[in-house]
């Protein structure tokens, strides 16, 4: 067991975890933040994407202890109260999700993209987002949603 401390969505968290506790299990089951989803469990689908110190990580491949001392942002930390983050609103307005299972990961990955590159081209979006699989949308509307959020468009 290891004692770890971190900030999760701005809140301080302190827990005892087994050394091999995965970050995704820690977030979902120890902290009860079930927004991050476990899809493939091998770092391919991106459904479990969270930000660790601002960088997107597959939380199914990371250990909870790797976040010790760090700052974790999950989908639950994006909206301010009832006010959605522009990316969240754009995913609704532009049809950037259907079933929604990959959506927390898509939005966290696209937030990291826009933090790094506020005005990406469609090609740059595709390249950045290729690690986030979506089986429902065929990606067209995800790309549109990210472009719209980047352009500051609030409605379709």
């Amino acid at each position, binding site marked *: 067991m290891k004692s770890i401390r971190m900030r999760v969505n701005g809140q301080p968290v302190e827990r005892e975890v087994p050394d091999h506790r995965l970050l995704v299990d820690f977030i979902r089951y120890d902290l009860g933040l*079930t927004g991050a989803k476990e899809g*493939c469990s091998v770092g391919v689908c991106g459904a479990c994407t969270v930000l660790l110190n601002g960088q997107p990580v597959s939380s199914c491949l990371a250990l909870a202890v790797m976040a010790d001392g760090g700052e974790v942002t999950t989908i639950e930390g994006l909206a301010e109260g009832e006010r959605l983050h522009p990316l*969240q609103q754009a995913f*609704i307005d*532009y049809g950037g999700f*259907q*079933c929604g*299972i990959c959506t927390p990961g898509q939005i966290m990955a696209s937030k990291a993209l826009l933090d790094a590159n506020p005005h990406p081209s469609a090609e740059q979006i595709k390249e950045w987002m290729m690690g986030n699989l*979506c089986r429902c949308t065929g990606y067209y*509307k995800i790309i549109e949603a990210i472009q719209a959020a980047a352009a500051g468009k609030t409605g379709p």
Partner: protein
Amino acid sequence: MEKASMESPHSIGQPAGHVEGPAKVTGRARYSADIALPGMLWGQALRSPFPHARIVSIDVTAARGVPGVHAVISAADLPDVRIGRFLRDIPVLARDRVRFIGEKVVAVAAETPDAAEEALGLVEVEYEELPAVFDPIAAMSPDAPRIHEHPEKYEHPPIPPIGGESRYHPFANVCSQNIYRRGDLERGMAAAERTFEHSFVVPPVHQGYIEPHACAAVIAPDGKIDIWISNKTPFIARRQLAAAFGVPEERVRVNPTAIGGDFGGKGSLMDAALCYFIARASRRPVKMVMNYTEELTAGNPRHAALITLRTGVTRDGAITGHRAKLIFNCGAYGAFIPLHFLHGGVHAATGPYRVPNLEIEALRVYTNTVPRGHFRSPGAPQTTFAIESHMDMIAHGLGIDPLEFRLRNVLVDGDESPMGERFRHIRCRETLSAAADTAAWSSPKPPNVGRGIGIYERAPGAFGTSGATLTLDRDSKLTLLTGAADTGTGSFTVLAQVVAEELQAPLGDVIVCQGDTDTAEWEEGAGGSRLTHMAGRATLTAAGEVKRELIALAARHFNCAAEQVEMRARRFIASDGRELDWDALLAWAAEHEALPLTRSGSFVASGHPEVTCYAAQVAEVEVDRETGQVRVRRIVTAHDVGTIINPLTHQGQIEGGMVQGLGQAMSEHLLVRDGSVTTAHLGDYKLPTAMDIPELTTVLVESLTGPGPFAGKAIGELSNVSPPAAIANAVFDAVGVRLTELPITAEKVYRELRAMERGK
């Protein structure tokens, strides 16, 4: 419970975002794997490492001793029941025999996944391997090992009359056999001037939803069983579960959850029956979450198919006769489809063409491989790849342009379809032409670039019963209670739009609430492109009843007959000119204790719909002659549509479906070697990524003729079917390579290119 965010007097035709959008983009939406119940244990299953073996003994003593383990069960602890969506041939846990690698043999419930895993590692199962058979042709030979000893004893509902002969278990390892005949095939073939025969191989593909199956079960002290399950048809799940548990249906309550993608794969119970039995054994709530390796190796992927088509034609390209033999590998069990055979595969075996004389034989064959299920337009992508490639090959053989050949043969108004349907307003030619025109079919192409076309027809789903209950409250809110689950298509939003339109209400006033199976009206659920049509019609009826009651209330207020009042733009207008607006009527009604007001609607299918839907697609590809690499440059997808209730979600269905078809065409192959799925994670099983999508142009061929609410048609299972054929045909057009086996990999194209060079 979700609230729509858009305010609009006309809801139909508005591109409204999902009403459950805020829950889904904030992580609040609760999926089955997110369920947490007090005292909940983790369930896990030990699976067979052998494709076919006798279970000699199972020793769970050591497993039961692991700290934190509350139950370890095998078939000996269960009633001898089998489950299934139609045919009931799959045991909850393997009894005496395992029939595929991945079949569940033992289950545990433990306080942590680690303890469950440790316990499973200590279970000792002694197997005696049996000869196995993986290939459906080999499985049908009389000396093949029998996978099921007494299949005739399996239960199933009566086989519905669908035309043709249907038989269960007619001979060795055949789960079902259907033979459909029309006209006189022998005479048709004798009348042919040319005869073409081709065979096609379609390997299995997985639905690829990102949410693996999950479920949870808890048994209350009074015996009530609560289930959460990633399942698109909660009422049908309840029926199957009650049968498996041996309890009346009302004892089981299936609770709503968000569903993380379905595409046909989430109609099966998967672990839910087992979850109940380990909850019963452990006397604790239990959750089971499959991992993706379990999904790929032991889920219910699409049937593999071996298809042989033989078609007679005249020199000018008229079809005189057609024989199709469809051999579907259904794996070790037939339980994962809701019918006795892949109706959609049979239906698509002729394409939308005039075929006067035909015989279709469809077989579902047991093999010692992962059981197969339904996947978006079940059966149709397999046979459409075959028929639409075959039509191209015939056209080229006759020296006729493939588009022209199709246009000469497609059904037009007045024709009876090969399956004996009589459709009105057939839009097949228009849809084909729209796709071809938009793709500039006949325009010049650069070298190594080719165009191919494919077409598919599917009618809106018309089966089962749908129900809806609508309550109008004093505060003007309209709450729709539905038993339908939303698999991600945006069905709640569409139903909300139907209510808003009928009652001229802002969409934001409509709240859609998915009830559990105790509270909602019976609902057949999502599947077969039926939901917008049937739940939409039930909802429209309920909304119409509320409207009728409001008009009656207005008439009471005006002291006139209801026939003398109409509702227009949220105002109630009497024939003598008196008016009352919506809010005033509601205030008056509330005073007179007429609110809240609740009305129900139901809709029952009555035979096949009178109109159908077409999708025609043109693919443009570029082939690298050095490497065989195929790049899909562009897809044009043309759709014969009715009133589009929600353009945003409608287009989402088109785009998502097309990319699934692209995946099946280009990269997806659930590889099964000696009964073992070797593409056992999503790194090896290649779903399309954002980098793989081509330029997409959608063309809508509109007409107000659909059977759905406000003349809507279906869209969900149309765009994913013909991409493999269109792309294969385009590859032939580009470089002369004809692939009759999916997927279209660079390796296969490369081999054919080199073989062609050697042959020169």
